[in-house]
């Protein structure tokens, strides 16, 4: 069974988690399994930057990936950074198993605007598709409407769509096909 394990890091709204799980099914055809939430990631807190180190969180998450899951997606309300950049919307292992998305800067409240739950979910879905796409080998796409296009501002997140462009669809299909083949071989090898 091809499963994506979904893990909240700290408190994450249930409706967002549910919406993202549906989104994973829509775009990757994968089943999801919700894991128990991880506690608040205080180990990753960087007082000088008042943010959380995504590298520290990802190192921790690697220990939590269930053996049967093909991918682990983490969601957090924490504002994430890597040392070089002032923030990241999310991070993933290219061709790896792990992806993480931060909801902090996807919320309207971050920009001193009234909350907008449907917009938050739409943004979270796009960023989830983007980061999960990296784990399937997709790199940034030059097509601005494709969710794999690079977003460095919230405006760019809003401008792009949720559906992969034709080229990225082909690469993703091949990657998913490979995953299925491996799954079949693994099942056949088992007594």
């Amino acid at each position, binding site marked *: 069974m091809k499963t994506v394990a979904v893990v909240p890091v700290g408190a994450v709204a249930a409706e967002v988690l549910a919406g993202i799980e549906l989104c994973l099914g829509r775009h990757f055809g994968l089943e999801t399994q919700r894991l128990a939430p991880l506690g608040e990631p205080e180990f990753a807190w960087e007082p000088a*930057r008042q943010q959380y180190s995504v590298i520290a969180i990802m190192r921790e998450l690697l220990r939590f990936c269930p053996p049967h899951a093909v991918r682990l997606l983490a969601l957090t309300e924490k504002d994430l950074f890597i*040392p*070089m*950049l002032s*923030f990241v919307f999310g991070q993933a292992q290219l061709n790896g198993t792990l992806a993480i998305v931060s909801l902090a800067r996807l919320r309207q409240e971050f920009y001193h605007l009234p909350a907008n739950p449907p917009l938050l979910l739409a943004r979270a879905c796009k960023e989830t598709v983007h980061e999960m796409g990296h784990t399937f080998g997709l*790199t*940034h796409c030059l097509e601005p409407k494709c969710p794999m296009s*690079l977003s460095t501002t919230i405006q760019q997140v809003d401008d792009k769509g949720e559906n992969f462009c034709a080229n990225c669809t082909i690469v993703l299909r091949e990657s998913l096909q490979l995953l299925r083949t491996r799954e079949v071989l693994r099942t056949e090898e088992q007594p």
Partner: protein
Amino acid sequence: MKMPWEILVVDDEEVMRESLAAWLREDGFVVDTAAAGAEAVAKARAKDYAIYFVDLKMPGGMDGIETMMEIRKLHAEAAIIIITAYATVDTAITAMKEGAQEYIVKPCNPSEISLLVNRIIKVKNLQRENIILRKKLSRHYSFHDIISKHPKMLDLFALIREIASLRSTVLIQGESGTGKELIARAIHYSGDRAERPFIGVSCAALAETLLESELFGHEKGAFTGAVAQRKGKFELAEGGTIFLDEIGDISPKLQMDLLRVLQERSFYRVGGSEEIHVDVRVIAASHVDLQEAVQRGTFRDDLFYRLNVINIHLPPLRERREDIPLLARHFLERLSHELGKEVDDLTEGALRVLLDYEWPGNVRELENAVERAMVTCRARVLTEEDFAFLNYNRPERRGWVPPANMSLEEVEKQVIAATLQRTQGNIKEAAATLGIDRSTLYDRIKKYNIPR
């Protein structure tokens, strides 16, 4: 599809290094990392990267500036981005003065770094495209491996096509290294003799008797050491072309023998009595002015007129300077394959040195200079420094010696005449070159009765 550009991230801090590398990999780049300056330099020695991200502060060993300077020695045009956690004017000035392309303060906005990388890659893509276009252009200006876009040479290519299939004798005159043999080969291989042999003989290289035997062959026992009959070059070239290089150096006897071959299309082997008929096209070449040699009485006038049916004068390289970049890049491309060394281009500074040089040895000297620079260079681009040796060869360094018994007026006359010839009669250009005004130049032309 994006081209796989390679980036090197240099930082002693693993988290910093690996997180930036991961972020860049998501953008489709191939990313290498180095934890110290020495490691970065070793990696840069093995290959040139499109962009180098170098952290300014690296404890122990080389810091960011030193690392950048070492990389610059290997790749003069490397795009280096210095990263620092502390923005001070001093470090920024130092970094930029030492040649950093950009200077960024971490943490920086993702859109800033994305814009920066895209801007550099855009330039790199244009440079890559430029190299491809130059290669295409070089092929466009190539005629049987003769590279030129100079109008005189383009006319010459047209002439070669016209005369290629004739049997008329051709006399090629030009300074050493201008490519006389290449022209001879181009004539041969453009015509209907192309499938037949092309035989070259350097007349200056052999003594008279040896040359005679070399050209006409000998019978067994014709002279000591002639243990067997041997065919000469004229016989070997049957149906094709014989190229007689440095014809101005041959003895009066051989001049007579050659005249007979040209008139009769037949000859005798040395020590032989059988007349041998050949169908050979003769192309002769000389670096000395044969007409002058005729006037001096050292070259037969009847042979000169026989040879001079079609005359080709090859201009020296200094008179077709616009070909220098084209030729230099052509040699660079060819020698990259031959030497197994990846050198992509020449910097503007290097081209300036080549364009300023007088090239007494012409195209051959240019080829040798490019080869010498490529052998000693350590980067993928040839710079001004790689051609520093040319400065020591400049005539002015050796000191100019005027011909004996020449008056000052005669020197002035000859300099003006030579300048006008070089500018093809362009008074404005000649006056600028000589550093005098036009009216003065007109006065001198009148005074010395110099033809324009």
